[in-house]
């Protein structure tokens, strides 16, 4: 199959990904969706999660996405996310720490705990870890 979806992942701080891909699977807020070449124009918001794509050589790649939206056109996908990190850029230690912190905060939640924020950081930490860990599974296969 020809590699012909141009994927761009942009965050306010940098351009995370900009390359030709074969397929893209993104975490839409209404559910995960996959994109193949020739997809109908589509616009949706994204939640915290993992975006997978196959690059031109057919290798699966994983990117952590933190909220934003995706614009899909037949030959290109543009993701605007508040933050995004490729698998190799994820700071595993930091993610683990923030996961623990968030869990503690939720476990000892009182009336003034900012519940939404705690859940948000829990979700982000989990998503980061799951992206980071996808490396090990991919290697084992």
């Amino acid at each position, binding site marked *: 199959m020809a590699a012909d979806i141009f994927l761009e992942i942009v*965050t*306010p701080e940098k351009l995370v990904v900009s390359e030709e891909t074969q397929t893209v699977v993104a975490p839409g807020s209404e559910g995960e969706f996959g994109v193949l070449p020739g997809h109908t*124009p589509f*616009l949706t918001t994204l939640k915290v999660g993992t975006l997978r794509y196959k690059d031109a050589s057919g290798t699966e790649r994983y990117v952590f996405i933190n909220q934003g*939206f995706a614009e899909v056109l037949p030959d290109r996908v543009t993701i605007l996310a508040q*933050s995004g990190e490729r698998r190799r850029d994820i700071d595993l230690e930091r993610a683990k720490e923030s996961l623990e912190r968030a869990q503690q905060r939720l476990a000892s939640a009182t009336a003034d705990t900012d519940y939404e924020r705690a859940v948000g950081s829990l979700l982000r930490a989990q998503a980061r870890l799951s992206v980071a860990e996808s490396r090990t599974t991919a290697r084992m296969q």
Partner: protein
Amino acid sequence: MPSLKDVKAKIGGVKKTRQITKAMNMVAASRLRGAQLRMEAFRPYAGKFGEVLSNLAARAGEDASPLLVPRAEVKTVHVVLCTSDRGLCGGFNANLMNKAEDFAVERKAAGQEVKFTCFGKKGRDWARNNGFERVTDHLGIVGTRFPYTVASKTGQSLIDGFLAGKWDEVYVLFSRFESMARQKATLQQILPVPPIEIQEEEGGEFMAEHICEPSAEELMAKLLPMSVYIQVYSGLLETSTSEHAARMQAMDNATKACNDMLDELTLVYNKARQAAITKELMDIVGGAEALKG
């Protein structure tokens, strides 16, 4: 005529000052490069975002979100004032504060209350000395490599306050980086979100028949807060870049002034030295004449 020793000490002093201003100039230059890169990195995001937003606006209509609706009666105005933490950057902060002052006076005359969120120490001091109410202060942000979350958190609290009726309009006052030599204090309304310009489609390839999930209205409601964050972020970025540019300029001028002073002082020094030599010669000649006598 000042004494030789005084002039020499003065020359030494000015030379040292010149060294400092030169160093500050170079530091500002390198920080400016960093800030400019960050501004450039942000541009594609902001550009793309604006494009999508304007297309959505065309489809979603005017009342998709409470953030779009202007208040009938404006009682309280909130200004996000971006200034630098440090001085020695020419008229940079003064320009921003003049603008803030003008705005505050005008709004107060109209019977409205003005509140400030201050980024930067200079703005905070100004607001404090002028007795304005400050909602929050953020120091150590402008001019550094601050993360995007600073902007999104601030943006969110602005939105929360707006929705809770704590304020009815929100503005960002920042320094627009127009060029190396020009930074302009700019006031921009961010809440309620000003009507979004609907761009003409170019080549018709864009967005005509997009499927939206969830609906265009809901998407719009989700994207609008992000557009507020973007404005705050871009205001902060522009101010940071401007600060470094202004400091570079100011330090360049200071270095030049030092050079001018050195030239002048050297002239004075040489004159004084020559006068001393002449005087000594006169003494010798006078003494010889007297002996011949």
